[in-house]
């Protein structure tokens, strides 16, 4: 573990600087080393932790932009780390796991991760997702004025959502999702468009990601998440927000 910074102007020219501070939580030393080198090539500053406990310890003092989290860790389980971090706030989290089963992906996202990627993956792909995640709070063409969705109030400028006057805590991803749907003003937004606009890249296929985040969002803005009134599913097409003012 330690702080590494590899200066490589050539890499920054090619890929554009990411300039993000990452914490990689990974127990396999060789992966830490290789992925660390490659991410540094992408312009990232990478902190490393070999266990969940160590990661939480580090985060108590240092602040990072995104946590890259492996699920199979010695000691504290990756999902528990994810839940703990989510309970602390809206720290952006990307799970990097060798588990590809639908149930694992959903468990990871339900634990509060913003994104889920599977090994083997290359640093450039990961960097693209980091960039997208960090851009997430500023959707293109967003109107700066406040939007209302029933008793839910969205203030894009302050990045604040209030429900019945009280502030609701949304993650970056949930906020982006709600804002995209609200800005469509009742029109149906297709799954592809949502994935592209909120996650910010051409997400290939994995709509599980979207469904889990919509579910999480509903828990925060709906009276009864099982019978949604604000964020509705349109069968075979996508999602829409109802009652936008």
């Amino acid at each position, binding site marked *: 573990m330690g702080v590494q910074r590899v200066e*490589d102007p*050539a*890499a920054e020219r*090619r890929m554009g600087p990411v300039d993000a501070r990452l914490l990689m939580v990974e127990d*396999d030393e*060789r*992966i830490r*080393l*290789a*992925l660390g*080198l*490659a991410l540094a*090539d992408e312009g990232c500053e990478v902190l490393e932790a070999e266990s969940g406990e160590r990661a939480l310890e580090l985060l108590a003092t240092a602040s990072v932009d995104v946590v890259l989290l492996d699920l199979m860790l010695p000691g504290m389980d990756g999902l528990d780390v994810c839940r703990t971090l989510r309970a602390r706030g809206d720290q952006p989290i990307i799970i990097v796991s*060798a588990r*590809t*089963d*639908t149930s694992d992906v959903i468990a990871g996202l339900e634990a509060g991760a913003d994104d889920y990627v*599977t*090994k*083997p*993956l*290359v*640093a*450039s792909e990961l960097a693209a997702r980091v960039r997208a995640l960090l851009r997430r709070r500023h959707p293109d063409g967003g109107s700066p004025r406040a939007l209302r969705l029933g008793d839910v109030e969205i203030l894009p400028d302050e990045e604040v959502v209030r429900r019945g006057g009280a502030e609701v805590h949304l993650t970056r991803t949930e906020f982006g999702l709600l804002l995209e749907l609200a800005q469509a003003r009742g029109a149906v937004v*297709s*799954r*592809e468009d949502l994935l592209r606009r909120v996650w910010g890249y*051409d997400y*290939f*296929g*994995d*709509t*599980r990601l979207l469904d889990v985040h919509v579910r999480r969002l509903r828990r925060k803005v709906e009276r009864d998440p099982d019978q949604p009134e604000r964020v509705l599913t349109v*069968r*075979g*097409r996508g999602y829409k927000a109802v009652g936008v003012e």
Partner: protein
Amino acid sequence: MVRLSLRWRVALALGLGTVVLAGVLAVVTWNLASGYMLRQRETSAIRQAEVNVQLVDASLRTGSEGLGDLLSGLTSSSDATILIERPSGWLTSGRQVDADVLPPALLRMATDGVPAHQRLNAQGIPVLAVTLPVDGGESAYVELFPLTQLDQAFRFLSTVLAIGVAASGLLGLGLGHWAGRRALRPLTELTQAAARVVGGDLRARLPDRDDPDLASLAATFNRTADALEKRVRRDARFAGDVSHELRSPLTTMANAGAVLRRRRDELTGTAGRALDLLLGEIGRFQRMVVDLLEISRDDLRPDEVPDEVVDLGDVVRHVVAVRPGKPPEVDLVAQPPLVLADRRRLDRTVANLLDNADKYAGGAVRVAVLRHGGRARLEVDDSGPGVPDDQREQIFERFARGPYAGRRGVDGGSGLGLALVAQDVRWHGGAVRVEDRPGGGARFVVELPEVHR
């Protein structure tokens, strides 16, 4: 000649047997019943005639004045006829019957003083003729008793028996059919279970049987299926474990490779060429491991079912849009069909078919979404060399590359693309095949069950 099924042969045999048995019974019944009834009637007729003839005899002896009254009295209550041979000719009373219809042999016996009876047909109705000597054997007394009622009874009896035989024949046929089906049910179940196993459902089993004839069949089948399932699952789990364990070193290799690729310029000559080779193989290795894990996944997770309603047109548009290179013509029917799917797998299917066209046919020229025969249909056309008839099933097998074997080194495919397509399509309850594209090239056709809006 059409060979009947076992079930129908059993039914026919039972039907015929029943008909024969019922027929014999009917004939015996007929003979006994009709004989008995006829004898009863004859006995009573003869007794009646004997009483009557004594009256007539007495009347003849006392003088013939009251004979006419007596005769009409005797015949008034019935259709009977009495004929008495007098020197002046035949005296007839009751229903008028010509004496000529009486057989001469019968009359001769009467005049000879011998009582006799015979069944005959007198002017349209069946009668029993009883002849007795009268007037001390001087003349013949003939009484004709109509048998119309007995005849009706016989007709009724024969009808009932005939219907009975026919009905029992049908009953036998039906019973045979039912019994045949019942007896063959274990075989039918065996066939269905075997078909399910062949179709990929490794959990198909036969129910336990108490019947000792069937218990061993069911037990043997179930044991075989158990062993097969265990083996398939073990193989699949092994492939899955291998792939899983390979993901970690692959991640290291891929990222170390990425670092090296950025510094490719720093390596020249032999080292540079070796690096290119290495990086290419890492990429191919990675695809192979990922595909292998995916392909072994279904055998491990038979419970997963497609549960998302997906617009097939959206899938095609999206996959085509995110692919680099020249896009094929996309041909969507108005209101593209919806299918019940796992979005990730459906995307992968379309992508794998496009990859396949890229690798072997210089790229897809057209992707179409249609409706055909009540099913959603996806067509991926290329203008390559096409697929020869004898390769059309084989190309969907794992690592089967057929005539392309020599060309694979260049493209770096996993050799699992089309096998994954076949598996994913089957998982969605659909079918995939390759045919000739009109105008040259191959056309891959995927058909999926459509969900209605």
